């Protein structure tokens, strides 16, 4: 090393930038993506607590009712949120729900497959559809909005056409009897914690039916799925290497590629995730209703994206949280059910949904500016 260099290196002192401000605790909290959704959820509960508090909405039966609706939406909203964080959209969620339902019903009813085999078949198809969506987006570089919009039409059309071709109608009923002795159908079709509700009923803590069983018979399986998926998604996003890759892929595709993140694989995985979540949704609904409908899941993709956005996901990717999306789903589910307990005409629900989403986008945009603003 020359004398000159030594002089330079010894003289280095990195003064702290005097313009750095101390970051307050509040600011740190504001940086969490789910903050807006948390505030929204609290407001919704206060609102219905005041105007519908004594209407039965918050009885055991009422709570399970809106939790069930929230949970169903939440299952797809969480997958949609993860995909959005990874920088892509999936508009084919709703069509995938209808398609998966038919994939279960037709083999089980018309081809004589055991129910568990049909369910596995539906999930295999979901993986294929998700893989195809992802591969198409990654390989062509086209916006996922367009690719999955095409898939929305293709899947819904194919579902309708095949069903009519095979069955001559658009609905396939008769699944209820198959659930009874099936080895895996219970994963999607049981009320859980029944003993707890029976006990609550015997203690006269919750309302009973005339036949002596509690009105709310147990926690719907959708709620269990919803909670499990929220935990799983949050764990993946926050605690694993794969989670970091999801944020990186959505935040800056080129940058992520340059440092060795397998962006293509990450995105394909996330597309498979939304298709599989749609199939879980379909299993729960189809087995609950006992029939598959080709129109099932119509427009659900938009509700899922709305819940993810309310939950703090940025439309441009790289930012968001699974807990936020879960809260978004709870807000929508609670309002859509709660509105029945009020004097408000249910027609207003969509107005609320739209207004809530607008508000969320404005709020999120503000937050993003705060987070990324340069000194």
């Amino acid at each position: 090393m020359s004398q000159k260099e030594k002089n330079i290196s010894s003289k280095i002192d990195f003064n702290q930038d005097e313009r750095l401000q101390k970051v307050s605790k509040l600011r740190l909290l504001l940086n969490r993506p789910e903050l807006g959704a948390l505030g929204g959820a609290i407001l919704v509960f206060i609102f219905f607590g005041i105007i519908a508090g004594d209407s039965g909405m918050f009885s055991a039966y009422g709570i399970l009712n809106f939790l069930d609706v929230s949970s169903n939406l939440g299952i797809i909203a969480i997958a949609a949120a993860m995909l959005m964080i990874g920088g892509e959209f999936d508009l084919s969620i709703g069509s995938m729900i209808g398609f998966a339902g038919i994939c279960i019903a037709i083999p089980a009813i018309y081809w004589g497959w055991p129910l568990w085999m049909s369910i596995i078949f539906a999930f295999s198809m979901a993986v294929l559809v998700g893989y195809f969506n992802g591969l198409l987006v990654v390989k062509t570089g086209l916006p996922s909005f367009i690719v999955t919009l095409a898939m929305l039409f293709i899947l819904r059309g194919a579902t309708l056409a095949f069903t009519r071709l095979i069955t001559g109608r658009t609905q396939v009923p008769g699944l209820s009897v198959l659930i009874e002795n099936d080895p895996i159908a219970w994963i999607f079709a049981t009320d859980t914690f029944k003993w707890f509700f029976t006990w609550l009923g015997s203690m006269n803590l919750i309302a009973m039916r005339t036949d002596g069983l509690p009105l709310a018979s147990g926690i719907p399986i959708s709620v269990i799925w919803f909670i499990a998926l929220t935990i799983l998604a949050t764990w993946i996003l926050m605690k694993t290497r794969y989670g970091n890759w999801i944020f990186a892929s959505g935040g800056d595709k080129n940058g992520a590629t340059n440092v060795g993140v397998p962006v293509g694989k990450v995105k394909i995985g996330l597309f498979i995730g939304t298709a599989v979540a749609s199939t879980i949704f379909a299993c729960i609904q189809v087995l609950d209703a006992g029939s598959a409908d080709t129109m099932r899941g119509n427009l659900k993709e938009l509700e899922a994206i709305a819940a993810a956005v309310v939950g703090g996901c940025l439309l441009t990717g790289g930012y968001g949280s699974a807990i936020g999306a879960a809260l978004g789903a709870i807000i929508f589910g609670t309002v859509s059910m709660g509105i029945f307990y009020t004097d408000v005409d249910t027609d207003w629900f969509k107005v609320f949904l739209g207004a809530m989403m607008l508000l969320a986008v404005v709020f999120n945009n503000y937050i993003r500016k705060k987070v990324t603003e340069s000194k």
Partner: protein
Amino acid sequence: MSEYLIQFNNISKFFGKVIALKDVTMKLRKGEIMCLLGDNGAGKSTLIKTLAGVYKPDEGEIIFEGNKIVFDSPKDALDIGIGTVYQDLALVSLMSVTRNFFMGREPQKGVSFFKTFDIEKANKIAAERMGQIGIDIRDPSQAVGTMSGGERQCLAISRAIYFGAKVLVLDEPTSALGVHQASMVLKYIVKAAANGLAVILITHNVHHAYPVGNSFTVLNRGKSLGTFQKKDISREELLSMMAGGEELNKLEVELKEMDRLNS
């Protein structure tokens, strides 16, 4: 073992009929900062990509620690210790300092399916590394977007060093920065070299290059105009060589002529 850490001997790169690089030779010792100067279109980008393993040179050889090497992919270059920091820095502004620092190379703990990203360890290392540069990030979970341009550049360089770079290739690290920020980055580069790294600093700004460089290679239209030690060349000479001194002289004459006609 040769006295040079890395040598690029007579590197040429052709794209069809276009000669992007012709017979470019550079040699670097440990602790040396070589500035690669050139105007737009001089072949800087091609040379960087050749150094980083993106392109294979059509002629010439790369000798690293005395052994001839061939890169088949950017990963090969990374693995032997050539760390390239591109102009876009490969940083995601919405992600935290730690998550950016370890992006794609996250430390893990636990077993098989339950392996988790060891965020505590990562936070600690990131804060430590940034502290060494004098960037006090009280909270390594703050978003990179809140950092200044100079700090981001330092983060990207620091990351390359942490992951084992022996030769740092820096693409225009000061081009988008103000004077204060640029000097912060240049100080860090000098410090990195003092710790034994070889640095190739690519820039078109002689004023940033001259104070920190030990030697200067000037590229013009794909050819090297030579490598000069600092003692052998002045800032003005470098500048005129880089811009094509002749052209500037011609311009001066033309302007004088216009002045004469106008008056």
